[in-house]
């Protein structure tokens, strides 16, 4: 009798689970619980430390290569890292090899620079989208302006104050690649390893485990993974953003999944052995 009742659990309409998950994810958006994000992973800490130690005025090249499909995970990372760079008075250059990124880059730089009184052309520069990333990366090694002679607004890149002293990778202090594609692999292989430029990455949680070997060998100086990584970085720079606010939902959703896995396994054991 008990077994028959328990068997019904496995025939539950999966749409109820979808609904439960939707409620669990949506509820903290309406009313945040404020669950703390207490752990800072080693690789996020390394990424933070690397940028934090750069002297003011260093030129950091941001390669922001993600589109709306991975925005919830990568956009908070990009916002947090750009904020950190501005806080440290670093010069920021932005490139992209994903056409869908241009609007999202525009979103960041429409608001964040103003918070730190940074001026387009003097403190940061946004370059236009370029196709064929590997060819562009290779070309930039000899002459940055051979590829990027104009910025996104059509201004001569050579004459911009932010670009003073920048000719090739030798003048770039660091590359930050935030991507939902394999662009980080290209930066490591074609630039980081080849021209000894430090590379820090920001990737989706799905691709995060695959970058372990690059971190172990030091080919990557630090890595931010998914929304949790963004939340960790936000807490390091003490600027809570979308990453931090998403932690409530993620924690509750993970608890729900754990509860469902545990419940179904206990029920299976009962059915099998009782």
């Amino acid at each position, binding site marked *: 009798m008990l077994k028959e009742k328990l068997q019904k659990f496995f025939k539950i309409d999966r749409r109820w689970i979808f609904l439960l998950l939707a409620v669990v994810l949506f509820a903290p958006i309406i009313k945040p619980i404020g669950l703390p994000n207490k752990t800072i992973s080693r690789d996020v800490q390394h990424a933070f430390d690397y940028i934090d130690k750069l002297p003011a005025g260093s030129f950091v090249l941001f390669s922001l290569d993600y589109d709306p499909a991975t925005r919830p995970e990568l956009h908070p990372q990009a916002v947090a890292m750009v904020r950190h760079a501005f806080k440290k008075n670093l010069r920021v250059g932005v490139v992209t090899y994903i*056409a869908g990124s241009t609007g999202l880059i525009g979103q960041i730089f429409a608001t964040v620079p103003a918070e730190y009184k940074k001026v387009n052309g003097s403190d940061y520069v946004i370059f236009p989208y370029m196709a064929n990333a590997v060819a562009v990366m290779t070309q930039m090694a000899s002459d940055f302006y051979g590829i990027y002679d104009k910025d996104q607004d059509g201004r001569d890149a050579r004459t911009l104050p932010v670009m003073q002293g920048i000719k090739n990778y030798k003048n770039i202090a660091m590359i930050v690649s935030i991507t939902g594609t394999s662009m980080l692999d290209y930066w490591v292989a074609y630039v980081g390893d080849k021209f000894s430029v430090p590379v820090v990455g920001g990737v989706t949680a799905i691709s995060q485990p695959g970058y372990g070997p690059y971190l172990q060998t030091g080919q990557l100086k630090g890595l931010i993974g998914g929304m949790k990584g963004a939340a960790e970085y936000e807490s390091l720079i003490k600027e809570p953003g979308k990453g931090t606010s998403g932690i409530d939902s993620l924690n509750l959703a993970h608890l729900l999944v754990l509860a469902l896995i545990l419940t179904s396994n206990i029920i299976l054991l009962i059915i099998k052995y009782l």
Partner: protein
Amino acid sequence: MSETWMIAGAWIAAGLTVFLFSFLYKDNPFFKIAEHLYLGAGMGWWFQVYVYNILGPKVWTPLVNHDWMVLIPAILGLSLVTQFVPKISWVSRYGFTFLMGYGSGLAIPAGLSTDFISQIGGTIRPLSMMASMTPWAIFNSLLVAFGVICVLFYFFFSVEHKGHFKKVSNIGVYFLMIYFGAAFGNTVMARFSLLYGRFDDLYTFSASKYLYATQIILAGMIIYFAIHGLMNRGKKQAEAVN
């Protein structure tokens, strides 16, 4: 961007999100509309990307400025299109030959150095520095080296996997399973993050400044499913009577 366009954008975004999620309940015409719109909009988006970001600045503008060298890559690129005409499809081989040579030249040395030699070095190097390492770091390095050997052995098929060889190979499988488990856990987290992102946008679009887009569209969908369900029930009852 004007306020009207912001509101229109919010309604389209909220509408398409709700329409696509409605498939989780059951297939419906609104889901089909969103699906086809996605395909059409995607094609249109890429078309304009190629025209305005590649064809225009990389081919048309140099040609207008009498930079004739650009004709060489342009013709090689165009040769690929001859694939669609069987009689002259051989021309495409020139384009493909260039792509193959260029791609191999770029990828092979970088791949060998970054993903092969550096990784082997990364596995071996710690073993030569044990005197200056903490016990935990030594254990970690040995574990990595042991895992690499076991996993490589699992993929080595020239020796029959039995006896001691099978044990080593099985340990390799456990290492792989741990990696897959970690990757799957991260995948779940990533998917939840994406879902959170959509819900966060839906919440944003539920504000009065967007004229309650989310609530109205959701209510519309619920009404549709309710009416559709009632009509179907009526049809089924009529069929049962007949």
